[in-house]
């Protein structure tokens, strides 16, 4: 550690004003403050705020909250792989190895491309490198299918960081959630690689007899035409090669095919606990997204009409990416509503729209991504009306 610190101190003059690498100062500064505490911390005396919570630590907290999802996802990718090729007896080590081989390159590409672009913009615009990408870079792999081509990850990350964030002025200025922008880009640009039956990594191996890449959402959507009961369809799915994969308990645990990090509602809830306990995420948003989806599901149950509408409301909370979106995407402090009342409205509408899109729009099997992006756009408007309602209320009370 001492050696590293000495080395950094030694090359520091080159990056200071007048040094030969002056224009790369901010890249250097990012590296330095990432490794060591900056020299400009506040003194022990005086009236300044002394809590060390800064953007960097906030971001690290969110990443820690994502670790359960990531680790579970790595295991699950391997687990689903061996189930699909008919080798249910594979060892834990094998499963984790396959998972790591699939997941790690996606993480590396996402961070490499995203941070590269961040450094380039920081150098051009002469501002410190922001830490905003640390979380985005981890979120992007978690919402990708395990066998997504790496070049697509790179293109989507570049698109999301440049168009979704830097065009609006960088970290903290983006209108849309950057990770979801990346996913939406892939969804519309290369739909064949991110929809249909891509959710299990097969590799070169041949799938087991009876294998089907269907997802709970596609099964539910098909039940509408067939008129069958969604729950019994889900319970009987996978007979012979992956029995009981879509039972309610199993879907809650998340031992099913899907995007790398989003299958497990349980892991998302653990992440939610960490976020709420540390104050990094708003519990109001998380609760209201779940509540909105559940409420809308109940309402559709009462109305009835087709198989999907009659699916029990609590199923909506465990299928698809609702839990992951609610915990990690909707709570993004930059793109969510800022006012406390606004957070309830914002979250509830995300839940409602998710279920509406799932049930009524056959073109989009999963609705959480589009619902969050839509509400990201409306969040400032919600805030505006909440604030002006508050102003009116107080003006009425005032006796001037």
């Amino acid at each position, binding site marked *: 550690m001492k050696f590293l610190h000495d080395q950094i101190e030694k090359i520091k003059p080159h990056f200071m004003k007048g040094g030969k690498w002056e224009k790369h100062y901010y890249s250097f500064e990012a590296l330095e403050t990432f490794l060591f505490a900056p020299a400009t911390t506040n003194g022990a005396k005086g009236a300044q705020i002394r809590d060390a919570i800064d953007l960097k630590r906030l971001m690290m907290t969110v990443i820690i909250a994502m670790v359960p999802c990531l680790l579970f996802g790595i295991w699950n990718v391997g687990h689903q792989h061996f189930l699909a090729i008919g080798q249910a007896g594979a060892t834990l080590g094998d499963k984790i190895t396959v998972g790591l081989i699939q997941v790690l390159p996606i993480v590396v590409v996402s961070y490499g491309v995203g941070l590269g672009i961040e450094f380039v913009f920081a150098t051009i615009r002469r501002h410190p490198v922001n830490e905003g990408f640390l979380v985005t870079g981890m979120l992007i792999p978690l919402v990708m299918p395990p066998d997504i081509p790496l070049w697509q990850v790179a293109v989507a990350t570049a698109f999301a960081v440049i*168009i979704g964030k830097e*065009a609006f002025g960088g970290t903290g200025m983006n209108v849309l959630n950057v990770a979801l922008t990346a996913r939406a*880009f892939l969804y*519309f*640009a*290369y*739909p064949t690689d991110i929809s249909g039956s891509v959710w299990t990594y097969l590799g070169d191996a041949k799938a087991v007899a009876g294998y089907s890449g269907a997802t709970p959402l596609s099964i539910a959507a098909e039940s509408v035409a067939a008129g069958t009961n969604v729950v019994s369809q889900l319970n009987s799915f996978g007979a012979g090669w992956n029995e009981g994969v879509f039972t309610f308990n199993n879907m809650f645990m998340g031992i099913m095919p899907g995007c790398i990090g989003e299958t497990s509602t349980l892991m998302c809830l653990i992440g939610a606990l960490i976020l709420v306990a540390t104050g990094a995420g708003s519990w109001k948003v998380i609760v209201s997204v779940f509540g909105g989806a559940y409420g809308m599901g109940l309402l559709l149950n009462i109305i009835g009409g087709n198989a999907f509408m009659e699916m029990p409301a609590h199923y909506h909370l465990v299928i698809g990416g609702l839990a992951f979106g609610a915990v990690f995407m909707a709570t993004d402090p930059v793109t969510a509503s800022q006012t406390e009342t606004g957070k309830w409205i914002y979250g509830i509408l995300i839940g409602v729209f998710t279920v509406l899109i799932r049930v009524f729009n056959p073109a989009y099997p999963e609705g959480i991504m589009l619902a969050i992006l839509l509400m990201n756009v409306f969040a400032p408007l919600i805030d505006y009306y909440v604030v002006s309602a508050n102003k009116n209320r107080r003006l009425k009370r005032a006796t001037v």
Partner: protein
Amino acid sequence: MSTEVAEVEVVEKKSEPLFSKKNRKLISNPLDIDNPITVQVLGICSALAITSQIKPAIVMTLGLTFVTAFSNVFISLLRNTIPSRIRIIVQLAVVSVWVIMVDQLLKAYVYDMAKLMSVYVGLIITNCIVMGRLEAYAMGNKPWPSFLDGLGNGLGYGVILIILAFVRELFGGGTLFKGLPFEWHVFESMGIKYQGNGLLLLPAGACILLGVIIWVQRTLNGYRESH
């Protein structure tokens, strides 16, 4: 507006050459610092709708340039006789004559193209660029500068259209000049298996691309939003 008229007339008295510096500006400004799409942000609908390939973009450019230039000339000739209270409807009547002419020509000679462009040819009538140039320029200037102004704005519109169409066709479909005699399957001919980008083929993709073009242009010109 009136001061602008007086100015032009003063210059005309000295029998200005046809392509004086001032007249050349009428053509060159819309191509860059006064571009109808990227600076004035007019004519967006057609720029997003028909630029998924280069061929319709070229046809649209020709059509719009033709209509804008000749409508400008006619309105400029009539400018002193049009009662200002009904000028919009007069302008519309003149524009629609030229649009119908373009539409009929397309239907007669390139019927497939006319079908592909569907309503967008007819919609030139309501294209903001045409109306904008009539109001802002032809109503106060002589026919020849008005003609050049119409030509310039039509070409300025076309430049952006063709840039959009070039990128969208190349990266969206992997071809160039599709439907023309020198159609080129770019990636296939280079032996690369290219997977078309579906987002670029959607109008939403064109809108993002247009935003990028505006970003690049403003960066190059050092444009700053005035507050």
